[in-house]
């Protein structure tokens, strides 16, 4: 007689019953704006008094792991399509007291055929979707789309579009999340939630981004400085 034991936790709500489930690691990302949970299409106010409505926030973490243990080839955060979900798979959280990763896609994978990655990989063109430019520039590492009203008055007019799409090998950043806190969710799942503070992204640690003048970026020639700023500010805004 087979005894089926239902899992009480899993990556999906309707996971099939399994026997002796493997432990699961889950990484989520919670976007915030100045400490408050951020919702897409809601309106926030920048330090300059601009009204901003974020419409898309996406980024890649590639080669995430610790001390020779690797989680997966790449993870894609897509706030509109997948909410706070970033990664969920079988694994032992105790192997990852800290996590190091590339913010973006490293040059070893960045220019490979995006159709050749397995369908399960977030680097596959079907999953990358609009996060792949072309083979030469490769993947978009960080994407922030928004609509902004940069005229500080009583009238709300979000007629100013912001498209910050950063990539290219030379702009790759690394993140090093020390002292990752894994919280038990049920018996088998461990979860950690990273914070992505878009207010901090705009303010930066050393240099701020002004949507009035810095509203379009595709890492084209001549955009090296702003690309680096976007990547560094995004890196600093992402914390464990």
């Amino acid at each position, binding site marked *: 007689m087979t005894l089926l034991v239902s899992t009480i936790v899993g990556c999906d709500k309707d996971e099939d019953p399994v026997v002796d489930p493997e432990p699961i690691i889950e990484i989520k990302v919670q976007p915030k704006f100045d400490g408050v949970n951020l919702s897409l299409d809601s309106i926030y106010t920048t330090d300059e008094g601009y009204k901003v409505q974020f419409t898309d926030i996406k980024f890649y973490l590639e080669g995430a792991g610790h001390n020779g243990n690797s989680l997966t080839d790449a993870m894609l955060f897509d706030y509109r399509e997948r909410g706070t979900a970033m990664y969920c798979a079988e694994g032992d959280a105790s192997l990852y007291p800290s996590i190091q990763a590339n913010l973006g896609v490293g040059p070893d994978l960045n220019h490979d055929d*995006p159709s050749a990655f397995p369908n399960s990989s977030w680097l596959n063109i079907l999953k990358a979707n609009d996060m792949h430019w072309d083979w030469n520039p490769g993947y978009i590492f960080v994407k922030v789309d928004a609509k902004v009203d940069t005229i500080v008055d009583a009238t709300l007019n979000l007629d100013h579009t912001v*498209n910050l799409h950063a990539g290219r090998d030379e702009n790759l950043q690394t993140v090093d999340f020390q002292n990752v806190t894994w919280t038990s969710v049920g018996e088998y799942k461990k979860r950690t939630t990273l914070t992505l503070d878009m207010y901090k992204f705009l303010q930066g640690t050393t240099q701020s981004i002004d949507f009035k003048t810095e509203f379009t970026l595709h890492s084209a020639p001549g955009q090296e400085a702003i690309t680096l700023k976007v990547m560094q500010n995004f890196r600093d805004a992402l914390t464990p």
Partner: protein
Amino acid sequence: MGYEPTPYQLKIPSHFPDMPIPSDNPMTVEGVELGRKLFYETLLSGDNSMSCASCHSPQAAFSDPEQFSVGIDGIQGLRNSMALINLGWDSFYFWDGRAKTLEEQVLIPVEDPIEMHQSWTRAVSLLSESVTYRNMFFRAFAEPGIDKYKAAKALAQFLRTMISGNSKFDVIYKNENGLALNAEEQAVYATVTPEELAGYDLFKSLNGADCFHCHNGPLMQVQKFSNNGLDAIFADIGREEVTGNPGDRGKFKVPTLRNIELSGPFMHDGRFGTIDEVIDHYSTGIVMSPTIDPLIEYASQGGVQLDPTEKQWLKAFLLTLTDESFVNNPDFRKP
């Protein structure tokens, strides 16, 4: 050992990703054959006058050259029939994305009162009267019996075989990305004109036509919904009808540009009859609205402001997306 249908090997171009196949509907030779027959089957309409092919004609890249298709009761549809190209890679179906799978999608037009207006119960009953169909369903599913779900699976299998990846653009794409060209492809590449290449540059250029934000990769589309600046006020609210979210107002599925030369008229309501009109729209005709896609970066200026020469180049490139071997493929024609 019982009867087993024959596995079907999809002919996927080398520069395409693998096609995701649902585990409960594996591709089989017999399933595809049945789906093809059903695609052209008029018994699926209430007065037995229309089939799927009535609004998805091979000559029009499996779309309808009319702005709106007319159903069996003479009622005009509300949206332009979408071209059936590379559907196996799509994540959602219909202009508003209301179907998440092909199997779900193909069930809907049959019962839609402004389309084929036939109940599936009646359609299944009619199909069951046919010895040919009873045998074909048995061969496809290795069990007796006909139902609408089997019909949907077979239709979906056939639609997944409708792969277009053999245009001049494919040769340009492969060459640009360092993929080997065979002798035939090299010969095609030798015919690529400077205008076509200039158009491709514009297509990809962020300061040019800026098309590739939404029409990207070998499939020439991204999976998303977009308000592409057609209207300020929407007679058709599009995706919002499905989600109920006002933030989705006026958003529609981004279609592939493959075979655009053949698949007009264009946009969800077929308002543009020619490629030139489409280019004019993105050049100077963009209309602002609260849900406009922020990826249309020059929306506030009305568009990307192409000059006449640039428009000509862009059109030349768009015509390279025509895949004659797709529209003329005998495997997709009426059996």
